[in-house]
């Protein structure tokens, strides 16, 4: 037992001294952070983008702008609510400004109330209750700003002519300027042609959106939503319906409560309920990445020990079994360290960023430590770690060099990739045939069952796959122990498959 502890501690410290380990540990969350933050940075670095709206009918332009302004005011209110929750003490200001509430609870009438007060007035009210050292409120930047068509463009002319005339601006050959300064190109040109009639799709009479940003969806989807509302209002009014009634109907607040029969069955779906769908996916990806990082470390260390003949010194002091178990435990501990580090870093980032994210972080913590998920995760993590590392340890004990090991790693990696490739199918139909069949394959059980757990798979499947997994891990470790012992002192060519099989099969 003492030797296992010594080897485990040694392996742990050895990994801690490896620069590559720290690079893996730090780089993965950094990639995650970059992947989520870069699009936002690019977005904000670009600043507001300009578009030109030419309404040849004269009926929609002003309304579109009013709707877009309301959207912006909502964004403003959301940012201000978040700001207030972080920097304003719970005093009179909150009582007075009852429209400052969590984002999910903000309704159209709150936006209207806020708009009626005006940003400056609200900030003035908040000022006396601001906590010490609170920064000034930064209003979110407008993403799209409407500018007028440049001189020389006839707004009433043929849309195609207008489009051609503005092409140099759209393609970035000619800069445009507006309230936020000069921009190298015009983001979009929207033309509502003279003959546009809602509900009648005739060639040449549809709304035209000119833009070089093929992937652009922000502005056009907003436009589509606004136009649908406007067209509906127009249609209602044409039927002689009271404009006040139309306005009321169109701003009807629709309450949504989601229910998940797999969770409580009778309670409205909370943020925790939503997280329970997302967290297993996240955890299983983390599980997958960590087992591969750790497996790789174990593989390299074992090959190093064999190639520089250290193994012989070790085997004069400990048994092959003690060496194997010590290695699995020591390197495994580094896996748990990575896990703790990533979860810690993720939560720290969530708490550091802003109030909404902090709430998300609290919910995440609540979920992690109040549900069975964390226990299931730790057990599946352990099983998955043992399977992957047992396979890697086998490769480490038969390959003389890293190059040798590549030949064995390719088929192993293909098998291990399977659940990741299938993750989407499994999550979209957690109790479907694919998910159920894959659950019974011990190589995949930990990943697949993690994804399935929120959908409450049948108890016999959870228990059955768990038993099969446990037996598989025990059996695998036993067989790997045999291969490990038989090959540690071998030199020269890696053994052929037939020879490996002989090591695995019981001696006659």
């Amino acid at each position, binding site marked *: 037992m003492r030797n296992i502890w*010594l080897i485990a501690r040694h392996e742990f410290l050895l990994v801690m001294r490896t620069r590559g380990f720290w690079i893996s540990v730090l780089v993965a969350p950094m990639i995650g952070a970059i992947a989520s933050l870069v699009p936002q940075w690019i977005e904000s670095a670009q600043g507001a983008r300009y578009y030109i709206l030419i309404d040849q009918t004269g009926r929609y332009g002003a309304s579109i702008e009013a709707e877009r302004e309301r959207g912006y005011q909502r964004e403003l209110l959301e940012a201000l609510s978040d700001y207030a929750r972080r920097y304003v003490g719970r005093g009179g200001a909150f009582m007075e400004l009852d429209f400052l509430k969590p984002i999910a609870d903000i309704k159209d009438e709150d936006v209207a109330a806020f708009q009626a007060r005006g940003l400056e007035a609200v900030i003035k009210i908040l000022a006396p209750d601001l906590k010490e050292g609170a920064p000034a409120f930064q209003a979110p930047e407008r993403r799209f700003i409407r500018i007028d068509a440049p001189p020389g463009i006839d707004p009433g002319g043929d849309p195609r002519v207008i489009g051609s005339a503005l092409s140099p601006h759209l393609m970035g050959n000619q800069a445009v300027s507006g309230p936020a300064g000069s921009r190298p190109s015009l983001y979009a040109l929207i033309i509502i042609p003279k003959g546009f009639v809602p509900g009648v799709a005739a060639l040449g009479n549809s709304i035209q959106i000119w833009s070089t940003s093929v992937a652009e969806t922000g502005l056009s989807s907003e436009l589509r939503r606004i136009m649908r509302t406007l067209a509906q209002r127009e249609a209602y009014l044409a039927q002689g319906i009271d404009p006040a009634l139309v306005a009321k109907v169109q701003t009807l607040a629709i309450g949504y409560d989601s229910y998940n029969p797999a969770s409580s069955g009778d309670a409205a779906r909370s943020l925790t309920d939503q997280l329970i769908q997302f967290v297993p996916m996240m955890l299983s990806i983390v599980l997958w990445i960590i087992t591969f990082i750790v497996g790789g470390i174990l593989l390299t260390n074992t090959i190093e020990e064999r190639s520089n003949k250290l193994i012989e010194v070790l085997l004069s002091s400990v048994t092959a079994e003690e060496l194997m178990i010590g290695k699995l435990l020591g390197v495994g501990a580094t896996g748990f360290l990575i896990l703790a580090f990533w979860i810690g870093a993720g939560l720290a980032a969530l708490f550091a960023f802003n109030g909404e994210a902090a709430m998300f972080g609290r919910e995440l913590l609540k979920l992690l430590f109040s549900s069975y998920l964390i226990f299931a995760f730790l057990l599946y993590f352990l099983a998955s770690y043992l399977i992957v590392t047992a396979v890697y340890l086998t490769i480490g004990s038969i390959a003389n060099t890293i190059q040798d090991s590549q030949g064995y790693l390719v088929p192993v990696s293909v098998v291990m990739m399977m659940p990741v490739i299938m993750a989407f199918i499994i999550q979209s139909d957690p109790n479907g045939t694919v998910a159920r069949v894959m659950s019974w394959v011990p190589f995949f059980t930990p990943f697949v069952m993690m994804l399935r757990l929120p959908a409450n798979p049948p108890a016999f499947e959870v228990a059955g796959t768990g038993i099969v997994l446990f037996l598989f891990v025990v059996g695998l470790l036993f067989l790997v122990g045999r291969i490990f012992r038989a090959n540690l002192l071998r030199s020269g060519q890696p053994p052929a498959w037939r020879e490996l099989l002989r090591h695995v099969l019981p001696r006659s």
Partner: protein
Amino acid sequence: MSDRCVLDLSCVTKTYGDFTAVRDLSFSVNAGGITGFLGPNGAGKTTTLRMILGMIAPSSGEIRVLGAPNALKVRGRIGYLPEERGLYRKMTAAQSIAYLAQLKGMNGASAKKSALNLLERFGLKGFAHARIEALSKGMAQKVQILAAIAHGPELIILDEPFSGLDPVNQQVLEDLIREMANEGRTLIFSTHVMQHAERLCDRLILIAAGEKRFDGTLGEARHLLPRRVRIAGRGDLSLFSKIPGVVSVTPDSDDGHDHGAIVITLAEGADPQALLRAAFEGNVALERFEVREPSLHEVFVALAGDAAREAVVR
């Protein structure tokens, strides 16, 4: 097995498939002294040492080390230096020695202290906290040797300990081996460099092709081959062939003189003085008369040469 017996091999055989690496090997080693375990490449030395250390199990036969049926049960009393050396590149010299000593049963503090003492004693104090990857090959080898003895073992097994060391470090190691033997420890080292064995060993065990060919002292080994006398001088050198006890007379091709030079091989028990008397009586003007004991190298070649040649051909 007597109380003084630290190692006993009885009819030990190791086979790998159809190949027999060690065949029916038996010998025992008593406490104290230095035993040379000799043999050509591929003779089965390393396999035997690995079986002694419990790393691999014999196919048949029995091994008892320090009274135990498996060396791992008494690993704290055994030190081992393998033929091919290696240490963890990222660990320091002191850490490496201390870690391996701990695996031999020492507690952390004592292992660390022992490591630092040894490094100081062998001139590596300044490198105690240097990583192995920063040390020269010779230094790293020294560290590994120190790691094999840091826990104060009673039985020390060294597999080709001199390979890769420069002459200065070979001398340092020879002195260390003698010192450990003087402290009452038992040393077994394998080598195929006969000079080291000649200088160090009280006892020799020679194996070839997996079988024991000799087990005894250096003197006994030398008696296995007939003595030779090199004679150079003027006169009738053919008279020596008629003297009783002379087995053969051959020209001495190594002699640089322009007169006659011969090598006489004597039968066991024959007296070289008879040759000297015959030279005076036959009026041979002697310029050289050298009685040569057979070297261990010659004994080795005579006993294991066939197996070594077969191994090369194989």
